[in-house]
């Protein structure tokens, strides 16, 4: 999302593709190292920072639209994010066939063995905490409720978008970056069990919206969002003198490529100390086996 926003505003952004979260300056992805050497890693803060540096896609928005942006972002975070987490990390088929493969292929040996598993556990715990207060008795019921709320949320978005090109008229704003990063991921990933995807495909104006943005800002990505490892170092060649508005469009393009990371890994804080845990648990598993013998 940070990258999309940067694209939107044409901020000169050098994207370093790091697959190893430990090499990131702050230990999390995405991380933005500013010209002052500061490191910011929360997507919202990245956007705030870019705004301060005068790259502002929301410049032309009225106060009321700014308020709407905040409201809709909250809506998405509250309703859509848990379901996305569920779709990619908790739903077994999806996890095994898509998510784990993505991460395993993108990470260097030997991280690819245990890091995806650890991320999965963290996500499951997070999901439990977020929704666990409600009714933890029945997993299936919880799932159904989650998906129903997500479907409602998507329908609401569709209604709000109507037949406009972007949420606030003809030029993209940060809300568009936000929404796009969620929707693009959902649309493009080839999920074996994609109930939410099916619903999203039924909302034609949202699909058109995504394809429109993709074609405008991510022309080289072709038909879809490639898995993170294939992302070209395209953003670094973005020195062509586009007008600010066009630059805004290209920001979106870079973001879509980074969407996988920005969305899924940006919210996970991987601290340096904890990785030791995973090999530890493995060792424990082996020790137990030894004991049994």
């Amino acid at each position, binding site marked *: 999302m940070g990258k999309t926003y940067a694209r939107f505003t044409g901020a000169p952004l050098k994207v370093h593709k790091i697959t190893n979260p430990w090499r990131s300056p702050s230990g999390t992805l995405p991380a933005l190292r500013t010209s002052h050497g500061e490191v910011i890693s929360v997507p919202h803060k990245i956007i705030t920072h870019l705004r301060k540096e005068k790259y502002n896609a929301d410049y032309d928005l009225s106060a009321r639209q700014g308020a709407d942006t905040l*409201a809709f972002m909250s809506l998405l975070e509250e309703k859509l994010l848990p379901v996305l987490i569920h779709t990619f990390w908790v739903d077994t088929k999806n996890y095994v066939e898509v998510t784990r493969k993505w991460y395993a292929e993108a990470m260097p040996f030997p991280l690819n063995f245990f890091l995806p598993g650890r991320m999965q556990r963290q996500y499951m715990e997070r999901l439990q905490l977020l929704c666990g207060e409600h*009714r933890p008795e029945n997993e299936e019921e919880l799932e159904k409720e989650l998906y129903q709320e997500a479907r409602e949320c998507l329908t609401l978005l569709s*209604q709000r978008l109507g037949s406009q090109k972007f949420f606030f008229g003809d030029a993209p704003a940060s809300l568009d970056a936000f929404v796009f990063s969620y929707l693009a991921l959902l649309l493009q990933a080839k999920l074996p069990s994609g109930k939410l995807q099916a619903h999203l495909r039924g909302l034609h104006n949202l699909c058109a919206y995504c394809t429109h943005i993709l074609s405008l800002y991510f022309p080289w990505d072709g038909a879809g969002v490639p898995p993170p490892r294939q992302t070209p170092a395209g953003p670094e060649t973005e020195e062509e003198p586009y007008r600010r508005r066009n630059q805004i469009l290209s920001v979106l393009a870079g973001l879509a490529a980074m969407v996988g990371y920005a969305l899924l890994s940006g919210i996970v804080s991987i601290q340096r100390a904890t990785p030791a845990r995973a090999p530890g648990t493995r060792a424990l598993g082996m020790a137990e086996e030894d004991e049994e013998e």
Partner: protein
Amino acid sequence: MSLVAEAFVSQIAAAEPWPENATLYQQLKGEQILLSDNAASLAVQAFLQMCNLPIKVVCRANAEYMSPSGKVPFIHVGNQVVSELGPIVQFVKAKGHSLSDGLDEVQKAEMKAYMELVNNMLLTAELYLQWCDEATVGEITHARYGSPYPWPLNHILAYQKQWEVRRKMKAIGWGKKTLDQVLEDVDQCCQALSQRLGTQPYFFNKQPTELDALVFGHLYTILTTQLTSDELSEKVKNYSNLLAFCRRIEQHYFEDRGKVLKKHSRWYF
């Protein structure tokens, strides 16, 4: 509730009219209830007043445990028990009363989004302040939360709840926030609400909706609860249209109907 149960409840709800003896349960007003729960309870009360539905407020120390979802407030209507504003709005709608029928689709979408904004930012900030800010926890929260129970239960319950809330804060990324950042977020949220409200009497012009009830619940509670410092209420006071909004609803839906929003002795406005 599950979809089937919801449909079932709706059917039953639709069958009977709103009774005279409907009750709302919350924790003890004077000694026990906390900021966030009070805000939620007030929001529901405001909503029911706006719908012209009579409700009696009953205070019980174990209201949290009586509630079907573990959250207060909950209402007992006929032989059904419904908790939290969202489900209560649905329940009331099934009985034929609704405040948002006059809105078109886009407005309904906006209403839902703003309600999420309030829940996401204001409610979370209230929880943070109550349970993660050491000063408030020590001076106010622990004492209040466990007050109806004897020692050592009061401490155990308070610590348990604190641990639960802190876990949740960590999960949503608020664990590392400082108080200043939280107050910043509250300010942003209030600014958004203020901008959306503008000069209108209610968020969707002439008639109040559940969004107005929710915002009133939270803002009024923030303004009238005395905490260790005034920073939280100062953030809200910066926006005069929000203050006027709260005053308007208090006057129109509570004082004019003879219901005094009982002000706790430690509150001030």
